[in-house]
């Protein structure tokens, strides 16, 4: 029994492990559930990026459910001890190799175009989203996907980092409940 539990735990650990991303955290203000019109501030931090095969971190893509609208950047990620360049907010960008990105922040390397930044983090960013007007329980999932310059196509030196999207929020819109009284007659 003990051995079986150990095997199950080992399998689970391997499954949940991110290849290059370490210590991802997030918080939402206010916390859900959400109704139409709610404005939510999301803070996400990637504690450490450890790219395999000298892959550098290149982009943070925000994945939103259809219930969200008005995605607004508040604070771009930092670039501690990283390459010269800046994080650019972009709703959509197609990299030269055809990789489609957006919305989110992507690093524009001032030296070698197509490379990310050599920084290992931490990277903290803040954005706001608004629950759109709706009458149905639309999807409000939020996740963050991190890409390295191997994935985006700027660096080719072996395998790219394969990391699952980090789940920030799972939920649906709570439509306002309309409760009409019976019809009365004077």
């Amino acid at each position, binding site marked *: 029994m003990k051995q079986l539990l150990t095997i199950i735990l080992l399998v689970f650990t391997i499954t949940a492990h991110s290849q290059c991303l370490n210590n991802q955290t997030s918080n939402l203000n206010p916390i859900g559930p959400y109704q*139409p*019109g709610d404005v939510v501030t999301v803070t996400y931090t990637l504690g450490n990026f450890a790219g395999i095969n000298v892959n550098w971190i290149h982009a943070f893509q925000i994945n939103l459910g259809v219930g969200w609208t008005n995605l607004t950047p508040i604070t771009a990620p930092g670039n501690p001890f990283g390459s010269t360049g800046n994080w650019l907010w972009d709703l959509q960008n197609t990299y030269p190799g055809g990789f489609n990105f957006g919305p989110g922040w992507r690093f524009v390397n001032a030296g070698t175009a197509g490379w990310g930044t050599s920084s290992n983090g931490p990277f903290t960013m803040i954005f706001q989203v608004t629950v759109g*007007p*709706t*009458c149905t329980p639309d999807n409000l999932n939020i996740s963050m996907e991190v890409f390295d310059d191997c994935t985006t196509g700027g660096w080719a030196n072996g395998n790219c980092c394969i990391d699952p999207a980090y789940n920030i929020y799972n939920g649906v819109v709570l*439509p*306002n409940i*309309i*409760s*009409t*009284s*019976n*019809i*009365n*007659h*004077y």
Partner: protein
Amino acid sequence: MNYRENKQVLLALFITMIMMTTTIFTFGQTTINPDTVCANAVGEQYFVTNTPTSTYQWTAAGGGSIITSGQGTNSITIDWGGVSGLYPNAVEVIESNAAGCPGTPILLDVFVLDLVGNAIGPFCPGDPTTPLVGNPAGGTWSGTGVVANAFQPSTGVGNYVLTYSMAGCTTTINVIVNNGPVTGPIQHF
């Protein structure tokens, strides 16, 4: 029961009365389904509890009904036609909230009541008591000379207006009691 106990009972009664009063003024009356209106009634007011940020789409169908005011609000007035009968879902309202989301339709059946009083007479003062008949049956007759839903010509000569009432609706008939012939004494030539 001592003075202190009496005081507690009175206080409880007072609180209960306040709660009952509050309940009545908060929720208003409740109309039983189906609702009854008189044929050709005008300015009948229908309403639901108001939510200030909502709009209300009303529909009136059947019985010759026409919404005359209040569309979009929580309270409307309706003029009804004269065709008697039960009209299922005659009044409907759909509330939409500030986001434009519609709620569940709220429906009310309406019975349009057209009272008819059967004509009687004319009578002579000596005629027997005559039953008064109204349609639909079940209402109440009133007026001079009416006793237990029957007219008594013995009330005397005159023109009487009798009223038939049911569920808040009324109709009238005129009943005439004529003079009898005045016959002189028998003469012998």
